[in-house]
């Protein structure tokens, strides 16, 4: 059974870290928390950049660190992407990329140079001097540089946080493809729920140096007792299958076990796994099915919890027929008027659905 097992206890000055989590040895594991929650320290400890007094780091069967042993950083098969790109300013883009690559024995190189360069769209930058790159270009080079060491674990420390919105949106597809293209498990540090929703499969929520929740990302995103659901752009993740394309109205239908939602037309093969994101604020509720509405996506659901998030707003957690969860944010007045309570069966009207992958 391949898995990631991390136990860390350490005092950093007046900050006490006591973290333990297990995660599947594949996919994207988000380390989520506010700034100061200790997520970067966890990442650094897993990399070996921080020497943790009591620690166990076991990655897919290999012990990198335990009571008696400590594998130095440069012997850990990791790829680390720092918050700022941290390219070596004295080396060209190509030399930066080759820096890690040259230090990995030929027999252990699993990721071809050309593939990485193509995937991250940096082939035209190779001869450039690093100081002349844009923020987004730099971060793509940094990711490529980390990938070229053929890591067994990718560690990303808020790789998008230094970028502006446009650059973030531009680089996101690369990260998503990365995940599909190379089956490298990654620990992804973020404080942005949107980013987590788009990328994460598994999630570890940190607060004050401790793990407050861990598990499947889609489940955790909608948990009312976690801070994630209270964010303004709180959202739910749903897994489905591309079921058909509507050529006349330019839509793609995603089926969710008996129900279906429409997204703007995407050129994806029918039958493919698809992941959609639905913002809590885009979901309204009704007791009966309305056909006299502009809303296309109407899904039957059952209330499994409510939480007042402000004097005016209520967050309602819903379970679909297949067990996946959805969030709806409505006014307290509406909730009172409709008599919403746990176990109640109703219809979620979804105004907008984003297809992630």
């Amino acid at each position, binding site marked *: 059974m391949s898995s990631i097992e991390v136990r860390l206890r350490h005092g950093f000055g007046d900050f006490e870290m006591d973290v333990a989590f297990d995660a599947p040895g594949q996919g994207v594991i988000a380390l989520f928390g506010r700034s100061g929650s200790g997520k970067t320290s966890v990442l650094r400890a897993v*990399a*070996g*950049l921080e020497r943790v007094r009591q620690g166990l780091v076991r990655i897919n069967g290999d012990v990198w660190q335990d009571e008696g042993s400590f594998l*130095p*950083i*440069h*012997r850990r098969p*990791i*790829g*680390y992407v*720092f918050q700022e790109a*941290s390219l*070596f*300013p*004295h080396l060209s883009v190509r030399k930066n990329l080759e*820096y*890690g690559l040259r*230090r*990995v024995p030929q027999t252990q190189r699993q990721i071809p140079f050309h593939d990485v360069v193509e995937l991250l769209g940096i082939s035209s930058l190779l001869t450039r*001097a690093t*100081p002349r790159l844009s923020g987004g270009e730099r971060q793509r080079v940094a990711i490529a*540089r*980390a990938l070229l*060491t053929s890591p067994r674990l990718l*560690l990303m420390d808020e790789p998008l946080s230094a970028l502006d919105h446009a650059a973030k949106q531009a680089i996101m597809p690369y990260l998503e493809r990365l995940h599909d293209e190379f089956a490298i498990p990654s620990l992804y540090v973020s404080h942005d729920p949107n980013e987590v929703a788009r990328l994460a499969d598994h999630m570890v929520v940190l607060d004050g140096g401790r793990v407050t929740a861990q598990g499947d990302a889609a489940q955790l995103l909608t948990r009312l007792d976690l801070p994630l659901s209270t964010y303004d752009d709180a959202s739910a993740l749903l897994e489905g299958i591309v079921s058909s394309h509507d050529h006349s109205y330019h839509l793609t239908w995603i089926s969710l076990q008996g129900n279906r939602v429409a997204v703007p037309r995407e050129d994806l093969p029918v039958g493919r796994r698809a992941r959609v994101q639905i913002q809590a604020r885009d979901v309204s509720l009704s007791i009966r099915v309305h056909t006299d509405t502009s809303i296309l996506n109407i899904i039957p659901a059952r209330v499994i919890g409510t939480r007042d998030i402000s004097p005016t707003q209520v967050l309602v957690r819903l379970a679909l027929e297949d067990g996946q969860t959805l969030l709806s944010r409505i006014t307290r007045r509406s909730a009172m008027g409709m008599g919403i309570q746990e176990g109640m069966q109703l219809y979620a009207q979804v105004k907008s659905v984003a297809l992630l992958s």
Partner: protein
Amino acid sequence: MTFDWQPVWLTLKLAGTTTLLLLIIGTPIAWWLARTHAWYKQALSAVVALPLVLPPTVLGFYLLIMLAPDGPVGRLTQALGIGTLPFTFEGLVFASVLYSLPFVVQPLQNAFESLGPRPAEVAATLRASPWDRFMTVVIPLARPGFLTAAVLSFAHTVGEFGVVLMIGGNIPGETRVLSVAIYDYVETLEYSQAHLLAAGMLAFSFLVLMTLYLVNGRISRSHQL
């Protein structure tokens, strides 16, 4: 009037040897000072900076006592079969290394500190061993610091007078360096010789320092992020 080149060559040899040794000795000290949080860091920094405060003649005098046949260092050098250091070229190198130490350690320490731990960490995550990352990342990135250190140490050794006078013994070809030669010429009223040497030293120092500033300016421009 024949021009005596000996003090010039001797001075260049002394400054070159001193600078080379100082870069070898000063780099680990500076690296350690830039990285450590040990409580005695400040104390060690102060010790390194002492030659800046001590008048050269005082330093020279202490050296004379330390290096004497029954002084602590003198006993050691004799036990090692090197003999005693005063009045020898090696002695001047020893003294110059001590005297110019802060001129190498401080620019290097500044360079390492302003570099921060990040570049070495990045290199470590890219499989570079500690030595490897120091050689391939830290040194190239700290190049302006190394250049400053080398030039300051060289120039400072060329201009050194007090210490050399105190422990050198003014032996032609061995310890009679440029500054001592100039002093002698001035004292004996041979002003034309003194002028020649002094002007040469001035021009040389100017050229060295200007080169430093030019090169440093170019590097910092090309590394601007």
